[in-house]
Every structure is written in structure tokens, then in C-alpha cells.
């Protein structure tokens, strides 16, 4: 290290800078930092305030979920898988169950499919609300944080009424759903559908023409369509680069082909484009939810095969929720076969035929794919998750090269990564 004599007047600043041209600073951002996208570590190489290179380090939340699914039954896998992308648990569950159902060769009944779509779209809205809340907070719009979480509470109350939990529900099971909608759920959703569009207009008025918001988002984090495809980026990031690719339209699953909705895109290729696309997606999700509850088919919510259907005829009893007395009378008193089925299903689980499938769905962050391999047993042989945040994070070094540090925050916020999915 050489020493230099500096004059406090500062008049030799230009000489100092000229002499230090080949010195870059390496700064570590994370894994604990206030930009609350979880435990992401960015190693930035800086030349002054300009980012020369950025290297994300991940793995701080690695949970070994994929290995855990190999020692539990197919149904128990749902509870593991739902905690990966914890902001969109219904999407995780739905993709896993669609993969298992594909291997089993069954399809969930129409009512179950419609409820799955409704919950998935409500989940998309709540996930985008968290993105808007945390993204706004990181860029300085602190009130957005409070508004976003306030709306999210309404949606979480709906989830709690239907599934019993605010997050990580384990409600969607292979073959259908675990229980039917309780009374009052549809009314609560209709109330939400009336209130929410006005709030969404408020947020748009707050941010879309705000000069600070525009300055911090327009032209930041540029990702062209060709680069996005080469880097494997999918979801709102790809649609904000002009590519109208949405798996709900190109490869519909769970009855999406019956609903009428648009796929918003933007040609902006920057953070502002992604903001516009996600806001529009929330509006489209409202449309889908409205159509789903208007045309909700009646019928069973679990497939009729007794060797697969989870034996949960639940009823509200004196001490809380429990198995219905009629069902218990049947398996204990009347049918030996039903008792054996119940026992085998709960302890061992059902067996899935040999094969491998890859089922992709459109989660709020992009293409969520499940590569499931079965060797005929009651436990999965391999469950590999293609998580969209894992792939989308690869684009961050590309987006921030040559930008300022503040733009790194905006770019990472626009990727909307959820580290549970990245690290699994």
C-alpha cells in the first residue's frame, strides 16, 4: 500500500482520482441486509459508485427439501413443497399435485380444479402485493409497505377461513383438495373483489406518475428479450421484455382454458415495465377469480378412487375439527375394507406407477416446474424443482453491470426473488 500526501483543500482531487483508476472496491451486501428479499448475498465490485461486476452468492437458506421428500410419502410431500416459495404456496402445491396426478393418470374433479384456480389467482395477488410492498419500501415509498400488507391481511383471512392457515397451507393434495369451501367463503371473496380494485387504483395513483418512482425505475435493470430467453428468465420479467409467454395460455392446466383473461406485456424491458406488468396481472387475476366463483361447479372435491383419496371427511365437532362420526362408525364398525384402506393410506400412502414427468405451471415469479421421478413405491424417488427465482437471479449480474449501487436495489426488487425457492 503506497502512501499519498493529500492537501485538505481538496484541490488535488482530480490527480488523486486519476492515480487510483485501476483500484476497484469489493463490497459485500448481505446475507443480512434491510432489503428484505431474504438471505441473498451480493458481492459487488465497485469503481466509485458504479458496479463493475456483481456476483450473487446463494445457499443461505438451503433446507434440503428435495431430499426430505424422498423419505416421506407422496401426500406428505405437499407439506414440504409448500414451504419452498413461501409467498406462493398454492402454486407449489398445485404443481406438485399435478405432477403426481399425471403419474397416477388421474384428474382432479372439476370443482376441485376451479377452487385450485381461484386460490392460485388469489395467491398471485397476495404475492404481487408483497413484491409491491417490499419493493416500494426499498426504494423509499414506505407507505406502500403498509398498504400492501393491509390488503394482504384481507386475502390471508380468506385463506385462513378456507384452509385453516394463513401461509403454507397443505390444502391441495394429489387427487383434489382436502376439504370443501366452508360457508361464508364465497361471500368474503366477493367482498374482497368489490373493495380491491379501488385500492389498486389508489396505489397506481400513488406511484405510477411519481417522479421519484419513475426516476428510480425507468431505464434501470435493462434486459432485452434475447438476453432474457438465453438466461432462462420467465414470468413477469420476460413479459416486460415483450415476449408474451404465459403457461396459463400456452399449456393450460387445471381448467385455465375455460377462463377469459389477457396476458399483459410491456416493451419497456426495464424495472418500470415489470412494475406495469405486475399491476396489470393483479387486475387480470381479479377477473379470473370473479369468473371462477361465478361458475363454480358443484360436486366432489377429491377423486373417487378410495386407494388414493386422502380419508378426510372432516366435520366441526365439540372439540374442534375432527373426523366425522359417521366416517368413524363406518370404518370401525361396518366395513373392514374401508378400515384397511384408511390404515394403509395414512401409514404407508399410495403407490405411484414408474415413470418421470415434468410439469410446468405459471407461478407469480415465472415458470415453476416439477421434475418428479417415481420407481413404483409409496415414496418419491426424486423431486426436482425448477424454481423461477433461482433462474431469474442469474440475470442480476447482467442487469446491473455499469449501473449505480442504488440501481442494484431496484433491479433485485424487480426480479422479485424468494430465497426459499432459490435455495430450496
Amino acid at each position, binding site marked *: 500500500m503506497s502512501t499519498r500526501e493529500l492537501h485538505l483543500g481538496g484541490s488535488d482531487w482530480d490527480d488523486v482520482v486519476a492515480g487510483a483508476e485501476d483500484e476497484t472496491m469489493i463490497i459485500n451486501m448481505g446475507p443480512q441486509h434491510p432489503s*428484505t428479499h431474504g*438471505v441473498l448475498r451480493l458481492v459487488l465490485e465497485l469503481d466509485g459508485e458504479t458496479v463493475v461486476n456483481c456476483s450473487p452468492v446463494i*445457499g443461505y*437458506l438451503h*433446507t434440503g*427439501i428435495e431430499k*426430505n421428500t424422498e423419505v416421506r410419502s407422496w401426500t406428505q410431500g405437499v407439506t414440504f413443497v409448500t*414451504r419452498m416459495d*413461501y409467498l406462493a404456496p398454492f402454486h407449489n402445491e398445485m404443481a406438485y399435485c399435478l405432477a403426481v396426478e399425471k403419474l397416477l393418470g388421474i384428474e382432479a374433479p372439476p370443482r376441485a380444479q376451479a377452487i385450485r384456480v381461484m386460490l392460485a389467482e388469489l395467491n398471485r395477488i397476495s404475492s404481487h402485493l408483497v413484491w409491491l410492498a417490499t419493493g416500494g419500501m426499498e426504494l423509499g415509498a414506505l407507505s406502500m409497505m403498509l398498504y400492501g400488507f393491509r390488503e394482504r391481511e384481507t386475502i*390471508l383471512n380468506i385463506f385462513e377461513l378456507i384452509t385453516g392457515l394463513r401461509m403454507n397451507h397443505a390444502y391441495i393434495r394429489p387427487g383434489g383438495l382436502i376439504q370443501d369451501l366452508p360457508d361464508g367463503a364465497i361471500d368474503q371473496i366477493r367482498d374482497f373483489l368489490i373493495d380491491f380494485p379501488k385500492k389498486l387504483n389508489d396505489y397506481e395513483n400513488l406511484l405510477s406518475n411519481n417522479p421519484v418512482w419513475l426516476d428510480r425505475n425507468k431505464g434501470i435493470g435493462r434486459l432485452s428479450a434475447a438476453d432474457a430467453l438465453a438466461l432462462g428468465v420467465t414470468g413477469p420479467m420476460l413479459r416486460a421484455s415483450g415476449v408474451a409467454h404465459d403457461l396459463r395460455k400456452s399449456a393450460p392446466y387445471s381448467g385455465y382454458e375455460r377462463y377469459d383473461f389477457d396476458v399483459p406485456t410491456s416493451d419497456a424491458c426495464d424495472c418500470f415495465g415489470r412494475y406495469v406488468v405486475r399491476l396489470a396481472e393483479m387486475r387480470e387475476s381479479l377477473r379470473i377469480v370473479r369468473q371462477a366463483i361465478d361458475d363454480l361447479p358443484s360436486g366432489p372435491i377429491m377423486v373417487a378412487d378410495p386407494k388414493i383419496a386422502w380419508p378426510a371427511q372432516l366435520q366441526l365437532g365439540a372439540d374442534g375439527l375432527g373426523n366425522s362420526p359417521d366416517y368413524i362408525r363406518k370404518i370401525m364398525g361396518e366395513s373392514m375394507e374401508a378400515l384397511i384402506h384408511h390404515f394403509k393410506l395414512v401409514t404407508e400412502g399410495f403407490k405411484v406407477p414408474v415413470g418421470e414427468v415434468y410439469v410446468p405451471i405459471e407461478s407469480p415469479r415465472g415458470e415453476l416446474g416439477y421434475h418428479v421421478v417415481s420407481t413404483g413405491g409409496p415414496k418419491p424417488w426424486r423431486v426436482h424443482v425448477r424454481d423461477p427465482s433461482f433462474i431469474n437471479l442469474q440475470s442480476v449480474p447482467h442487469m446491473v453491470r455499469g449501473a449505480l449501487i442504488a440501481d442494484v436495489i431496484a433491479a433485485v426488487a424487480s426480479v422479485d426473488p424468494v430465497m426459499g425457492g432459490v435455495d430450496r
Partner: protein
Amino acid sequence: MGIEEKLPSGILLTTVSKFVRWARTGSMWPATFGLACCAIEMMATGAAHHDLARFGMEVFRASPRQADLMIVAGRVSQKMAPVLRQIYDQMPEPKWVISMGACASCGGMFNNYAIVQGVDQIVPVDEYVPGCPPRPEQLMDAILKLHTKIKAEPLVKG
């Protein structure tokens, strides 16, 4: 522990002690240590519906040097464990730790190679909050229990 180090030994303080303990619970600032799903519920606790600001705690300090309380919210992986210890060491006395959720308290449902089975293997924990994830009301209950515990702790030990 904080102010106790400055006191000369052998002196019993009652009213001052009560006052200091009350002041400590007045606005305990948490350090941001949200890891996984519990972090979202922690953010919801700080948001408008379940308001943590009524306890003076809505300011989640990013720098551990300015924080008194570390709420470990989420599963701690083997890679994150040294970071957790480093953040804990950087906090000045007096400090407390709440282990939020099943994964932080005991490893939760992830009993495998990747997760530390209980954050109390790394840092001393004052309150454990069960749940997967715990409701915001449960976290606030734990914080209030911590306040009670702090008010009951003697200022001078022995």
C-alpha cells in the same frame, strides 16, 4: 450486561433498577433477521393490522449495532449459522433473542443435514415461539412475555 458494568459492586438499587428495566422494554428495536416464511409474518406483525409500533418496535434496525432484540425468524441453514453468530456478537449488551417458529426453535419439520436443529445451539434464546409460521398475535404475545421477563430480572446479579 450494559449499565450493570458501570455500577460499583455491592450496592443495591431498587427504584433505579425498576426504572432501568422499564426503560429497556420501552422501545426495544429488533434487528432484521428474517430468513424464511416466518419473516413474512414478522413483517405482517410490523405492518398496520397487527401493529408493533404501539410497543415502539416498528423500527427494524438494519445495523445490529443499533438493535437490542434479535428475532430469528425462519430456518437457519448450516451456511447461515456463522453469519447468525456474527450478527449476535455485533449487538451491544443488553440483548435478547426470540426464536420465532418451529424451525428456529428446534429445526421444525426439517430434521436433516442442512438445517441447524434449533438456533439455541448457536445463540442463547430468551423466548421460543411455536408455529409454522406463528400468527402475528403469537409473536406479539412472545414479545410481551419478554417484556414481563425483563421487568422481573434483577439489575445487579449477586
